[in-house]
Each structure stands twice: as C-alpha cells, then as structure tokens.
C-alpha cells in the first residue's frame, strides 16, 4: 500500500482516527507522517533495527549517504536506483530506506544488489537448512526437468537420437507428474 499523501513511498504508518463516531483512516509513509507531526511520538525514537539496516544498505551507494540512511530520509538524493520490483512496485531505493522487502519477488528483482547486503547481515548469502516438504518436491522436479532438457539438447546436437527419444519420454513423464508448471522464472 502506498502513502496517501505523497503516493511515492510505501505507507508504513496506519492509524484510525475516530471523532464523534466519524472514522477516518490514514495510511502514510514515515516522512509524510513526520510532516503531519505528533504521530510519531513514542514510536521507538526512530532508531530501530530497520533504520540501522537501511544505513548498511546505503553504505555502498556513496559514503555521504550513511547518515541519511540511518534516519531513513535523505535530503540530498543519492544516485537514482533503477531496480524495481514489478510485482509489488517497490523500488530498490525505497527498499533501502525501509530496510524491508515488499514481497517475495523483490528478492529476484533486487538480486544484483542483494549479495553485499546479506553478506553484511549474515556473513553468508546462500540458504542451508530446511526445505519445504511439498514445495521442495516441486523444486527438485523442476531442477531435474531442467537437467533433462539440457541433456536432450546435447544428444540432439550429437545426433544420438535413441538417447534423445528416451530423454524425451522421461521429460513428458515428469511433466505430467508435475501438476503445477514452474512459476519461478530463472533469469
């Protein structure tokens, strides 16, 4: 949800005002809310883990923007960042200010910039550990399918048609067992 006031940044503050039974809802971004005044009082002094994170994210843009990043707003705009998530509309710039992703697709959209950030936070960039049971099955099948298609291509190029026919059958078989087609495109 985007800020009602500026329409540019994601709304991170949601509040409801009830006066004489009249209910008004506001959805604002932090900077518009601050302009509106008195709302932010008592809301953890503006120094949370997310502010700290956004400081980390801005580090690799320009050395001067660290201070701005820490407090979430920059008056002097850093170099415009073109990365944007098509799914939820969040830009990398907005992400680096909020310190939070908008949706799961953001991870794909911001991939070129993500490794240094994750490295700083976790010291690692690749997941090890639990894999979803049901989702994991599809993932493994998808991986196998890609592998088979690659082999098929190779065998056709090498004119090994018998092998190719076998591979084609296995691909068909696998495709029918996979109920849902793969929806995560590999870039």
């Amino acid at each position, binding site marked *: 949800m985007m800020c009602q006031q500026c329409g540019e940044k*994601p709304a991170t503050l949601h509040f409801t005002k009830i006066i004489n039974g009249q209910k008004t809802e506001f959805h604002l971004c932090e900077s518009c809310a601050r302009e509106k005044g008195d709302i932010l009082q008592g809301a953890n002094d503006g120094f949370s883990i997310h502010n700290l994170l956004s400081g980390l994210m801005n580090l690799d843009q320009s050395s001067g923007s660290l201070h701005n990043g820490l407090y979430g707003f920059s008056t002097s705009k850093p170099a415009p960042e073109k990365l944007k998530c098509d799914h939820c509309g969040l830009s990398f710039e907005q992400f680096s200010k909020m310190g939070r992703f908008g949706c*799961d697709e953001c991870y794909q959209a911001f991939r070129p910039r993500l490794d240094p950030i994750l490295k700083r936070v976790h010291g690692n960039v690749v997941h090890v550990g639990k894999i979803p049971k049901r989702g994991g099955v599809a993932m493994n099948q998808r991986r196998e399918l890609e592998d088979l298609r690659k082999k098929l291509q190779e065998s056709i190029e090498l004119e090994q048609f018998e092998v190719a026919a076998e591979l084609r059958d296995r691909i068909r078989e696998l495709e029918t067992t996979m109920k849902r087609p793969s929806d995560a495109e590999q870039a």
Partner: protein
Amino acid sequence: MSNQAFMNQPISDWMRGTGLDSDIVISSRIRVARNLHGIPFPLLATTQQSADSMERLMEVGQSSELSKLGPFETVKMAELNEMERQVLVEKHLISPNLANESRNGGLILSKDESISIMVNEEDHLRIQCLYPGLQIHKAWEAASHIDDIFESKIDYAFDEKRGYLTSCPTNVGTGIRASVMVHLPALVLTSQINRILQAVHQVGLAVRGLYGEGSEAIGNLFQISNQITLGQSEEEIMENLYGVVKQIIEHERAAREQLQQGSMTKLTDRICRSYGILKHAAIMDSKEAAQRLSDIRLGSDLQLLKEVSPVMLNELMVMTQPGFLQHIYNKPMNADDRDIYRARLIRETLAKGTAKSKENSHENQRIHQEEDQDG
C-alpha cells in the same frame, strides 16, 4: 470483564512445568517466520490482500491437522480491546507490533498457550513455541511440525538460494529466531555480566531485555538469541545457542557459589531486605519490583526463602505488568495508581505463600510427631 480464556491466569499452563536448568533458564522460545508466495508482505499489502491472507491462515488454524496437537482458538486483533492485547504482550504470546500496528492481525493460540501463531505481523505467518527451562530443540521440533502443517496447505515464499523469504533481510534463510530467557543475578552482582555479554555478542548472538528488541534488561533477566538466519542450518543455530547458554549457566552457578562462600551474610541481607520490602511496601514501581523479585527468586533458588516458589514468582512477573494489573483490579489506572496496586498485589501474593508454607510446616511437624510415636 473479558471473556477471553487467556485473561484468566497470569501464567500459561506450559509455564507451570519445569525444564532443564529451570533455576536459571526461565523459558526457551522458537519463532519461525514464513510468508505466502506471491502476495505482498503485510507492510505493503492492501487492506483487502491482508484480509485475504488472514482468512487463509486462520483457516489452517482451525484445520483438523492442527487440532490433532490439541485445542486451538483463533482470535482477530480487531476483536480484542487494548487491555486484552496488552496482556497478550505481557504474557509473551504476541509481539507489541502485532498488538498495536498490524492490519488484519490475528492469533492462533493453543489452549496451554505453548504455541502462539501470529498472522500479519511483519511477516504473514510467525509460529512461536514456548517451553519452560532449557528445551530449545524440543521447541524447534514442535515449531517445525506446525510449519509442515501450514506448508501442506499453502504455498510458501521460498527460494532455493535464499531459503524462506521474509519481509526483513535479517530473517531470511531459515526464518528462525531461537531465544532463551535467563535469570543471571549472581553474574550481575559480581560485575561479570558485561564481560560475558560481550563474549556472547562476539559469537554472533544477541542479548535483549525481557520484552525483546530495544527493551531494557530489568530484573536481571536476559534474552539470548541467534542473529544469523542465512547460511546456517536450524541444527547449527540451535547447537550454537545451546552451547553458549550452557556456558552461561555454568558461570552463573559458579558466581552463585562464590557469593555464598565469600559473602553469605551480605547476600542473605540483600535477599531478606528485598523480601521485607516487598511484603510491606505501599508503593512499588515496576523497576524496583523487578529488581526485588529478582532478589527473592535468587533466595528461592538458593533455598534461603522456602516460602517463595518459582511458579509464584513467574506469576508475579506477569501480574505486576501494567496491563495485567489493570485487568486484575478491573479498572484503568495511571502510573501512580499502578504503583500502589502493584505493591498491594505483591503483598497479598507473598502473604498467601507464607500461609501455605506455614500449613506445610505444621503438616511436617505432625508427620514427625507420628513418626516419633511409631518409633
């Protein structure tokens, strides 16, 4: 009065049990963050989208698979008043964020309150399992099982390379926060605490106060938790935390020993002085209450105060919080009122403890007499 079950008693049923090292470790908690695939995270979701995800997740909360684990109830944040939400926070069943800032927030709570599942907090789904004493692995087993139930019904946001995708980059990967709440009065008294907490930081763990991120360590209670969620497996995360907590327990035990041997009179004085003040004071602010309750908890652990039980102290810890205090006396209070009612509540609770222990000692005497007669 509220008709919500969780308002009836200050401590959850699970807290009445004891676990390993429960003289030092109050509780172990696992929190698992998960999100729905393809739907904006709660922060960016439209009100309609967040209402939809709540419905989908609450449905799993009412499913037969989940109820195999025991009875659960589902509550929407919007159905609760402010005091009820605050009590949930004080009992560590929901986060302040879910209580105050969520849109279409929900809670799926097991009857013994050992499992609380938050909907539309910072992530779509946050599964939390609580166990008494040092039982991180058990808590993870329980959380992982519930995770599987949800995953069998909904598509998670998961990526082969990054793992479970979360709203905040600090949670991506396993999505796990494992934390242990420890009571370390002797390490504080002997001024060793800073050195130890520094070492804890150095091995990549975080130390927080009683109520999580940003909260002050009051009453010598500390929460120790993992920071890293990416690039370490769940088992590694838990082994690491378990190993560090075990060492902290040893240090705390050694410090308690040291105090008992080196300055027993001073220690007894401190404990009994706090006990006296708690039993008689007419005004008690929350900070002093936490400190003095910590003293008598130590006294109870060291068998110096036999009439004070750990369960009673766990109850007092929650009952003396602002939300619960107002709930018990059933009226809104300002800070000054609360200090007066807090003092009263502590006096009354401790008096009950004394009465009980007198009964027990009479009982014991009778038994001894009977034994004498037999002999």
